[in-house]
Structures are given as C-alpha cells and as structure tokens.
C-alpha cells in the first residue's frame, strides 16, 4: 500500500499488540489504585477537620499542576538515588521499583489527584436529606460515608471514571521514557531498527485511536446497561 513495505511491520505484530495490552494493564491497575487514593483524599477534603482538609487539598493542587513525566522521573531516578544514600539497605530495596511498577505508582498518584476532584463533586452532590436520614438512624460519620454517601456517589461518578481510565491509558505512552515496553516504546524501537517511520507511527496512531474509541463506546454501552435504582 502507498508503495511502502509493510511486511516487517506485520512480522512484528505481536510485539505491537503486547505493547498495547501492557498499556491497558498498567492503566487498569493504575486506575484501581487511583480510585483508592482518590476516595480517601475526597473524604479528607470534605471532612470537618482542617488537619485533613489542608493536606488533601494541597496534594490535589500540587499533583494536578506538575507534569506526569516529572513524577515518573522522580520515582524512577530520584527516589532510588535518595533511598540508597539515606536508608538502610533492606528498606531502600523496597522503594526501588522496576519500570512497570513505577508507571503504576505514578499513574495512581496522578490519577488519584484527578479522581479526588471527581469524587469530591460526587460527595457534595449527595443530598443533605440522605445524610440527615443516616444521622437520625444513629449512624456514625464513618458509617454514613460507607453506607450512605458512597453508594449514592458511585452512580454519579461512573462516567468520569471511564474517562479517567481512557486518559490514563493514553498517559501510559510516557512510560516509554523509562523503557517500559508499551506500544510507544515498541514503535520507537521498531523505527530505530528498520527506519520505517511512516508505517510504524501510522500503525501506532491507528492502534491508539481504535483502542480509545472502542473503550469509549464500551463504557457508554455499560453506562446505558446499568440501570440504577436509587
């Protein structure tokens, strides 16, 4: 097609597809951890106690205003260097993560800050009447959070959760900077081996596009399928 040679690309198809799968895997685990961080931070931000609100707000504001690539570098290059010079050996080893785990942690920290905002809006959107009903039943603050706020909030934040997953998936492309063999890394490696710039980047672009749109369609379908009874 177009007078270009597509054979070697076809021969490497498995590397490209496993790169894509790795990106999805990293994004999914990252999202799961980001949800945990996001939930804790969102409840902290809506808490009555200032000593919880201020650190939570600072975390969200700080992380949302710095680049993800910097977080990756900080975790991958900065933390190990510091750990080995300051901490005892056994403790330092725990903090040294490989590329994939670094990416997961970075996505969790980064996505957590965005999800905290989403969840906070969800928490604030739960009507006062529900909270008061919970209180009049004699539930404690934690019980209200667990049995009243959380189940109602989950329904409103679901669409944003899907969008966050898609953007985290796109963000996994940055993991190439720390040599994680996801799709972008595979493509760049292929390009430096074969010099088939046009074919390789076109294919990578199409793979990303198809995946993000398939995910978006799937999420819309799921949203419509799930009929919540409030």
């Amino acid at each position, binding site marked *: 097609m177009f007078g270009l040679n597509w054979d070697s690309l076809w021969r490497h198809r498995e590397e490209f597809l496993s790169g894509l799968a790795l990106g999805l895997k990293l994004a999914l685990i990252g999202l799961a951890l980001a949800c945990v961080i996001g939930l804790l931070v969102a409840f902290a931000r809506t808490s009555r106690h200032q000593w919880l609100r201020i650190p939570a707000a600072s975390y969200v504001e*700080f992380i949302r205003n710095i*680049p993800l*690539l910097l977080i990756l570098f900080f975790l991958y290059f900065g933390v190990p260097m510091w750990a080995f010079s300051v901490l005892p050996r056994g403790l330092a080893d725990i903090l040294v993560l490989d590329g994939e785990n670094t990416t997961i942690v970075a996505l969790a920290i980064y996505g957590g800050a965005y999800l905290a905002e989403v969840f906070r809006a969800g928490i604030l959107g739960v009507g006062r009447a529900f909270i008061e009903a919970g209180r009049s039943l004699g539930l404690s603050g934690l019980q209200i959070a667990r049995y009243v706020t959380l189940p109602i909030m989950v329904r409103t934040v679901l669409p944003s959760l899907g969008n966050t997953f898609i953007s985290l998936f*796109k963000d996994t492309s940055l993991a*190439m900077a720390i040599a994680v063999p996801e799709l972008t890394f595979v493509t760049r490696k292929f390009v430096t081996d074969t010099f088939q710039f046009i074919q390789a*980047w076109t294919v990578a672009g199409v793979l990303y596009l198809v995946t993000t749109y398939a995910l978006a369609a799937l999420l819309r379908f799921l949203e419509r399928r799930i009929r919540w009874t409030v």
Partner: protein
Amino acid sequence: MNPVIEEFPLLLQGVAVTLQISVLVIISGSIFGLFGGLGLLYGPSWLRALLRGYVDIVRGLPLLITIFIIFYIPPALDIEVSGFAAVTVALSIFAGAHISEIVRGAVASVSRGQNDAAKALGLTFWPRIWNVILPQALPAIIPPWTNTAVEMVKGSSLAYLVSVSELLFQTYKVVGRTGAAMPLYIAAALLYFAINLALSRAGVLLERRIRYTT
C-alpha cells in the same frame, strides 16, 4: 539544598524554554481553537466534517504520539523538523483541538434569541459573532481554557523526549552531573507548580473581570 542554588541558573534556562513553548502553543492553539470551534458550529458541512475528524482524531491520540508523528514522519519525506518545532506544532494542534471543543460548547450555549436579535438589528455574520455572541460565551470559555493552558505547560515536558532543553530535560542533565536527584526534581516540580498556579490565578482574575462587564 546547595545543588539547587548552584544549578538554579540552568534550571531557569529550562524554565525560559518551557515558557517559550507554552506561550507559543497557547496563542496558536487559541487561534486554531477559536476558528475551529466557530467552524464546527457555523461552517459548511464539508468543513464541519473535516474539523470533526481533526478534533476527534487528535483527542483520541496520546499527545506523545502526535509529537512523534510530527517529529519522525516529515524527515522521512526529506523535510527537516527540529525538536522544538515538532513539539510546538504538535502541542498547538493538540491545544487547538481541545479549545475548538471548548469554544463550540460555549458558543452553542449562548441562547438562540441573542443571535436572532442581532440578525434583526441587521448585523452581518462576523460583527454578530464578535460583538454579540463571543462576549457572552467568554465566561464559559475561560475556565476550561485555563485548564488547557495548564495542560500545555505540563505537556511541554514531553519535549524532553525529542531532546529540547526545557525544564525537565535541564533538570535531568543537572541530576546526571551532580547526582542530587531528590532536591533537583522537587525544585523542578515547584517551578512547574509556580508557573501553573500563576496561570490558574490569571484565569480566575480574567474570568471575574469578564463576568462583571457582561
């Protein structure tokens, strides 16, 4: 703390490049986005289809892929592209797509009656857009526009991957030489934070000003 103070001039050189990329991108992205958004609403159907394709493709791709496509493909066709140019163009295309959607949404939310009234007064298309519709759409444009601008400052860090000496690349180089990773990365993070905080605050001030006059 010493290495940060000693190497601060180098970090500031990086900040200068980061700001240069960001300012160029925000300006060109806003111009693309303004006309893109208006084209999505009022253009003839072929233009609407073209812009829809552009916006949806760019928003579905990771920014890094857009950068690499622009960095690697033209040289294969014998067109020289510097890393700086590739990043600036890629980010502008990216910002343009996002701002197009923002402008489209905001302009569409201005009530139809305003457009009809302006028509009844005999205003032609551009005066109608410029003097009647856009001033009313602006308050809805500014907050997401500020977010996009912040995303672009953060996105300029990807220039590291095509060897442009912006803030992250400068930090990386200095870390390699001094070995003081922790303080330098924290300093870089604070510099990014400061730039973006200033940008967000400017957006809030601008929004407040505009809300009062309309």
